[in-house]
């Protein structure tokens, strides 16, 4: 049986992905940081199995349940924060030297903030965590077709939000 990964290994490999996944739920960096910290504290208290085939998906499933618990506890506060988040979302992407890429990243952050939570989180998992629809369905506990359709709707909305800029940057 392979050795279980250590917490520093998990943090280095998956910390950022988990943080961004939490941000798609909370809309606030501070809350996402708290959730990430709580998740690592939870991991420290339990035995991490060494035979997990897809550690990223396993951690994201834990993160998903943790985020859902958080949402249940903070429903009222979340609505207010979501509105504020849509106005001024936390920066999600790294700084880019290329001004076109930087502009696209900025617009994309804003477009993502306008998506419903369900679509935003699926888009994150698919586009930047590289999960398949099967894995997304398992992480979020939803049917495969639901995961696929949420992604399709999210992508269509992003496409229509970013079309003017995208057409300008990438004339076909």
């Amino acid at each position: 049986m392979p050795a279980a990964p250590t917490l520093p290994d998990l943090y280095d490999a998956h910390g950022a992905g988990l943080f961004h996944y939490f941000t798609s739920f909370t809309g606030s960096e501070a809350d996402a940081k708290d959730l990430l910290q709580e998740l690592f504290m939870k991991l420290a208290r339990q035995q991490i199995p060494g035979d997990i085939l897809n550690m990223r998906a396993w951690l994201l499933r834990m993160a998903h349940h943790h985020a859902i618990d958080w949402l249940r506890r903070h429903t009222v506060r979340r609505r207010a924060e979501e509105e504020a988040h849509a106005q001024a979302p936390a920066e999600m992407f790294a700084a880019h030297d290329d001004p076109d890429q930087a502009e696209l990243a900025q617009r994309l952050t804003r477009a993502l903030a306008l998506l419903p939570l369900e679509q935003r989180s699926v888009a994150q998992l698919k586009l930047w965590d590289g999960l398949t629809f099967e894995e997304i369905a398992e992480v979020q506990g939803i049917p495969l077709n639901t995961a696929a359709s949420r992604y399709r709707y999210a992508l269509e909305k992003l496409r229509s939000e970013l079309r003017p800029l995208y057409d300008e940057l990438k004339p076909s």
Partner: protein
Amino acid sequence: MNTNPDAFENDLRALRRRALPDEWRSEMLQAAAAAGAPPVMPKTHAAPAAARAPRWLVAGWSLAWAATVVMYFTTPPEPAAPLPSYSAEMPDSTAPPALLWDQRAAAIAALVASN
């Protein structure tokens, strides 16, 4: 279900997500280590207090016992005499069975006659 990404998806994918601040790493791992460590117990410590019953349970038991005691002291040792109307309608239960039977037969005959 088409899973082949188009150019737009590939361009979105190419954007790198922000890395976490360096100072978070030690902060989070220290907090996790502290959470995972077994609790430090002093060498001499008092035995843990027995778990207390919840307040609602204590209050419920108290009320039930209070009601039992009140009923015990307020209930007379002999049952009260039956109401006059009740006793007039009901045959005397201490009468001999044959008399009791006649009384009941008369009551039924009167009831049938009245209808």
